């Protein structure tokens, strides 16, 4: 990847992370861990990959993103705000009464949200429907579904996986965020969905593994996905839950809890320092 583009993406991802912390802190609730682990993915999608127009969020031929792991809405909202779909100040009102930004994504109320999600396992089915619809109408848009590694314990995910392969939905890319943790602990301790790669392969998908926090590798993975025809693509990204906030990294307790004032200040200080270092590069 071009070094300047890479640096810009790292800066954007850092800003997305700041927005996540800002939102969850002001909401006094929410899911920072899994939002931070997909921040780089969201930066790449919204600032490189997607054909979207913040001025025309319902553009019929746009690429679509379905955040099937809807609880990571703070990440999506932060990316959408930075991309210009709405004012970044909205992030501070996340989960408040009367606010636009609901606890989980609401396609009716939030520009840029392509599907209402939050109940795990449901988003990928809707993504299949969007992808199939595109094929039936000879449209060339792509659909990206983002799933959690705990989420793939839902049976509906595999109904959708079977469907996508059967209908050869090569305009669908599912990214599974494999940070290894779910609410009750390690995914391998709770009720292991592993091996996720083999499962998608067995269901007829083209599977790519990716380092979730390395833009060179992210570019490689999405370039490979672009070349696949005749089958859907699953990108299994190895990620760190809570990435880039030191005390949140790999800590399951940060799956669904908000920082207090002191923790908020520390997290923001860490991210500000990362931002300064990146901007000084």
């Amino acid at each position: 990847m071009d070094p300047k583009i890479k640096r810009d993406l790292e800066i954007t991802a850092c800003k997305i992370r700041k927005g996540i912390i800002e939102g969850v802190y002001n909401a006094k609730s929410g899911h920072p861990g899994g939002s931070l682990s997909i921040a780089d993915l969201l930066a790449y999608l919204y600032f490189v990959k997607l054909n979207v127009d913040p001025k025309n969020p319902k553009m019929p031929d746009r690429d679509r993103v379905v955040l099937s792991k809807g609880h990571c809405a703070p990440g999506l909202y932060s990316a959408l705000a930075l991309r210009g779909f709405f004012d970044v100040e909205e992030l501070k009102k996340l989960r408040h009464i009367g606010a636009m930004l609901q606890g989980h994504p609401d396609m009716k109320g939030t520009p840029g949200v392509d599907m209402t999600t939050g109940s795990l396992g449901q988003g990928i089915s809707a993504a299949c429907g969007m992808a199939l619809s595109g094929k039936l109408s000879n449209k060339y848009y792509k659909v990206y579904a983002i799933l959690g590694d705990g989420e793939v314990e839902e049976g509906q995910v595999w109904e959708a996986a079977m469907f996508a392969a059967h209908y050869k939905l090569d305009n669908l890319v599912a990214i599974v965020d494999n940070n290894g943790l779910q609410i009750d602990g390690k995914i391998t301790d709770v009720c292991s969905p592993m091996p996720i790669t083999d499962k998608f392969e067995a269901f007829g998908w083209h599977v790519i593994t990716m380092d979730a926090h390395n833009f060179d590798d992210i570019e490689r993975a999405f370039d490979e996905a672009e070349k696949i025809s005749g089958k859907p693509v699953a990108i299994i990204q190895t990620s760190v839950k809570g990435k880039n906030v030191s005390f949140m990294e790999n800590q399951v307790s940060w799956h669904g809890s908000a920082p207090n004032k002191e923790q908020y200040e520390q997290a923001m200080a860490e991210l500000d320092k990362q931002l300064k270092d990146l901007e000084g590069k």
Partner: protein
Amino acid sequence: MADAIKKATRESYGEALASLGEKYENLYVLDADLAAATKTGVFKKKFPERFIDCGIAESNMMGVAAGMASTGKIVFASTFAMFAAGRAFEQVRNSIGYPHINVKIGATHAGISVGEDGATHQCNEDIALMRTIPGMTIINPADDVEAKAAVEAAILHDGPVYLRFGRLAAPVFNDPNNYKFELGKGIELRGGKDVAIIATGLMVSEAIEAAKELEAQGIDARVINIHTIKPIDKDIICKAAKETGVIVTVEEHSVIGGLGSAVAEVVTECCPVPVVKIGVNDVFGHSGPAVELLKEFGLSKDNIVEKAKYAVSLKK
């Protein structure tokens, strides 16, 4: 009505889809491996490129329907009522109802008249479940004419609709030449001042027959067909409560949460009168020929007559 032509509303559903498929080129039909039974197979034969079989995976089907509809297509998702409203309840609520997506759920094999398949497949709870979803429109047509009209009304309505169809052949009593379907409007099929029989779906024709019998016994019964259970026609119900003073509801559904409950909810606010409910009395069904099951569970002309006389006695 013994001489009337009979036809199952699932047949009407399949024929309506196939016919309307020509008029609405944006109409797509999904099924979950039951096309031969739900009769979406009629559409499939005519428009194979607009028919999507989702296999035995109803939860995914509802999500696929939502995703397709979000891109602007008119999508019908079909399976048995048990799996549409039961198994896929939460998908219908969260992926279709909450975002108010334009998906039409064509649920066939509703109620006890599924017959021989028995309790696992006799869905007497679907109306109750669907009524709890905000913004969901629920239509339970009474005969072939009404069912076909309901399918087009669902297409023309922007938002989620649950359509309920039956397996058993039902008497065709509406005249296709002058029948008019109005979403959310009940139909007074017969005037009467002593008691109002409010029926839906398969039970409407039984109610008409019951009213004739009651007339012979000196009771003047009004008969109202409620095809749209949500939003319900409050005006026609309140007017009946005021003018007759007692109501009997009849439905091929549990007495909990269906038409009877909906009617009772309405009259408690506008004109509290006794509401005698006929339906499946909080029990599971069992195997047997549909017609015999209907009689056994009190979903018959004779039981309506009996309950109507009891209802009238409550006024004294």
